[in-house]
């Protein structure tokens, strides 16, 4: 199979990679599908915009970015066939196509899984599947398997999903760019230039170790400074409570002023249909949250008002060993007429796991990053890098309690230890 090329190369301007180059017709056609265009209406970082106002970039931007990094990688990998190159590119472009609005919170509350939706979008009755099927009948399945990490060629899987892959490299650079922080930057050109095929994955030439160190440190910094920022988490808490409240009201046959029809399939316990999922985006969700501000249900309207106007919950550091405090607080919140199910939340990093670098010791499920040494041997990164060694496998534990400071009583304030 020889993939069809466009008559001339097309380019998109991109603030992170400068240009995104498209040569294959399949890629061009995929970008034009409604399912891919939908990603324009789903932000890459969800509620991070409440903390870093620049973080309004979409999953559409990121997906094109991952595609461009993959394009640069596969152009140099002579071990791949032409079809395998196209497979890598399609997988890179489509790896996030199953994300929904405010994915993280939405998935937690409604128990959906964006990876499962990605598979259904690629293999189901969609334009994306139609475009991919033009390559070959089994091509959609292959793309789906690469993204799902079940494709037999592990090298191809590792390019899109490993500890140093096109996805992570793009989101670090892109998220750093749009949030305006300096932490996420590293020398991607050098890493790409020094990538070499090795066994079932990619290795980086030893001379590129310092660029990889920067990449690992960037991951660490971005997690604590951006992804797990307490203000962002606070907005997530309110969103989670909003979804939970709306679902409960629906279950209780509450009469919504405007019936939230697009959300109803997710309020119900059964699986939603593909079309229903694809109809949902952040514009839709925000529309209903805005409307919920005027609902009679005081909890729903209060939470909606907080979300829309950024009146977020405050937080304190909390040591979970003091679990009696949690029990006390539940009682105090109830006494104050605040339902603790909606106005008190405990948050820990396990809710948003940080995939810190792991060296691949026994029973670990991740392939380590390998360095290709001058004598041709392969060495695991942390064995050669003191910097990576020092942050590899080390967790930081950070637990917090979230609450509406404007509504708590003096007694609650005292128990929380806030002035």
């Amino acid at each position: 199979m020889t993939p069809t090329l466009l008559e001339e190369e097309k380019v998109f301007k991109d603030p992170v990679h400068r240009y995104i180059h498209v040569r294959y017709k399949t890629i061009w056609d995929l970008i034009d599908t409604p399912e891919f265009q939908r990603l324009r209406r789903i932000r890459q970082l969800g509620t991070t915009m409440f903390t870093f106002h620049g973080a309004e970039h979409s999953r559409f931007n990121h997906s094109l970015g991952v595609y461009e990094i993959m394009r640069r990688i596969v152009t140099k990998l002579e071990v791949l066939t032409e079809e395998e190159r196209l497979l890598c590119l399609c997988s890179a472009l489509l790896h996030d196509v199953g994300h929904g609005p405010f994915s993280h919170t939405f998935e937690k509350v409604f128990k959906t899984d964006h990876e499962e939706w990605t598979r259904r979008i690629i293999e189901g009755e969609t334009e994306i599947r139609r475009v991919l099927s033009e390559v070959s009948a089994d091509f959609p399945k292959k793309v789906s398997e690469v993204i799902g990490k079940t494709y037999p060629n592990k090298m191809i899987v590792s390019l899109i999903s490993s500890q140093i892959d096109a996805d992570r490299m793009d989101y670090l650079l892109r998220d750093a760019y749009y949030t305006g922080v300096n932490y996420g930057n590293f020398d991607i050109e050098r890493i790409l230039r020094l990538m070499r095929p090795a066994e079932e994955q990619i290795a980086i030439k030893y001379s590129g170790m310092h660029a990889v160190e920067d990449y690992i440190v960037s991951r660490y910094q971005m997690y604590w400074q951006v992804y797990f920022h307490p203000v962002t988490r606070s907005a997530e808490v309110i969103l989670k409570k909003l979804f939970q409240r709306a679902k409960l009201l629906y279950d209780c046959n509450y009469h919504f002023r405007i019936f939230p029809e697009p959300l109803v399939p997710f309020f119900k316990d059964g699986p939603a249909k593909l079309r229903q999922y694809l109809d949902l985006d952040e514009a839709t969700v925000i529309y209903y949250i805005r409307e919920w501000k005027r609902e009679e249900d005081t909890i729903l309207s209060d939470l909606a008002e907080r979300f829309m106007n950024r009146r977020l919950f405050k937080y304190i550091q909390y040591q979970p060993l003091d679990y009696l405090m949690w029990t006390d607080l539940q009682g105090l919140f109830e006494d104050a007429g605040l339902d603790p199910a909606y106005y008190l939340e405990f948050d820990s990093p396990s809710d948003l796991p940080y995939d810190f670098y792991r060296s691949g010791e026994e029973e670990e499920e991740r392939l380590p990053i390998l360095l290709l040494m001058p004598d041709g041997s392969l060495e695991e990164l942390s064995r050669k890098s003191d910097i990576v060694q020092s942050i590899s496998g080390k967790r930081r534990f950070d637990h917090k309690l979230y609450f509406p400071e404007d509504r708590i009583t003096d007694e609650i304030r005292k128990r929380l230890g806030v002035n």
Partner: protein
Amino acid sequence: MLTEHAKVLYLLDTLGEIVGRKKLQKMVYISQKLKFDFNQRFQFHFYGPYSEELTVMTEELCELGFIEENQQDKGNYSVYQYAITEKGRDFLHHVHVNLGNILPIASKLNDSSSRFLELLSTVFYFEQLSREEVEEKIFTLKAKSNYSHGEISEAYRWLQELRQSC
């Protein structure tokens, strides 16, 4: 608070101990597939279904002193052994955990090897595929583990038995 953590604690309290990170991962995944109320997200990884969330929860439980993690030396490799502590039991008395009648199934899983649970969880993961396709997946994705047709048949037998017993 810590309700998902408490379920992992409950499992350890019920079973006494679990030997192996991989075993813990696969036991929780299989229990989830059998509709026990575990809510971690799993993705397919090197040894089959794996949850980063569960890994972090386990580490948090260690950090809080609710469970103990001991490294067991097995010659050319080592495994981690997990057990609940007194502090963990105290905490468990303060939270409500409802995992239904998980004990018989959890015990059965805990008594089998990590290798077999890796295979069984992989069969669960690909349950929607035909037997032929699942075998092909196992022989290609887990070529190094060298699973036999007999072991795969055994995994299918377990899958049916476990489903029936739930």
